[in-house]
């Protein structure tokens, strides 16, 4: 019962933050509402017994990506306070499309018979963090995607430095 109340509260905070992110006129306010949403998602990971992912979410998303976004906002501002509209003229079409998509997704998910399932009991002696660590480096598990992710990050690092490099 308490878990349900916590879930509803956290989900409401996250969705409210997300809505404020996409409708805020001030971009820095949008970034701060995004941080609230990301934190709400981290709390949801804790509810799902994925504690490592909760910490990784806070460190990676809030600690790196959101800060990077705020830097990007500050480096690309023409005016300190931008009075122009931040929403397209055809925003009603986007809202309609989003609502239709949500309705379609919900209906399609509800036709699946596993939709109403409860959480299976997790055995207390398995340690998801240790399993995750072993899975990322075991040769018969996921070492190849892990190494490919490292190569991807290296490519993104080199690429973004070259793109944003300013010759003096």
């Amino acid at each position, binding site marked *: 019962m308490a878990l349900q109340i916590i879930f509803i509260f956290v989900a409401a905070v996250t969705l409210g933050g*997300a809505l404020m*992110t996409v409708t805020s006129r001030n971009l820095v306010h949008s970034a701060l509402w995004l941080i609230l949403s990301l934190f709400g998602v981290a709390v949801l990971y804790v509810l799902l017994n994925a504690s490592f992912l909760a910490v990784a979410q806070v460190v990676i998303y809030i600690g790196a990506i959101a800060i990077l976004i705020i830097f990007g906002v500050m480096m690309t501002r023409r005016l300190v306070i931008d009075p122009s*509209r931040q929403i397209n003229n055809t925003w009603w079409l986007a809202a309609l499309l*989003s609502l239709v998509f*949500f309705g379609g997704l919900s209906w399609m998910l509800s036709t699946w018979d596993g939709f109403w399932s409860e959480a299976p009991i997790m055995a207390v002696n398995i340690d998801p963090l240790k399993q995750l660590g072993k*899975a990322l480096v075991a040769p018969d598990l996921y070492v190849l995607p892990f190494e490919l992710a490292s190569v991807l990050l290296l*490519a993104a690092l080199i690429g973004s430095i070259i793109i944003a490099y300013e010759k003096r």
Partner: protein
Amino acid sequence: MTIPLSWYLIFAAALFCVGLFGVLARKNAIAILMGIELMLNSVNVNLVAFWRYRSPEGITGQVFAVMVFAVAAAEVAVGLALIISVYRRRKTVVADEINLMKW
């Protein structure tokens, strides 16, 4: 009764649609990137919920979520580098005004 799987899936769908609205309706390129981040987070919540509710003794769901973390970080870095580079040349980040390649 604890939390059924449907609550997580509906929540992830709603978060995805809010992000989708942000991508489609905003003018500033960085605001569009924020919408993309919301969509990626909703996908991650979905993955971890399926992991917990369908096969908590396995680890594939969490590995997939970690991969999505890495890809999202890489994409934000490159996206922001592109936006800053465009801003230096065109002095604007409004998506409508970046129209050199439109016919």
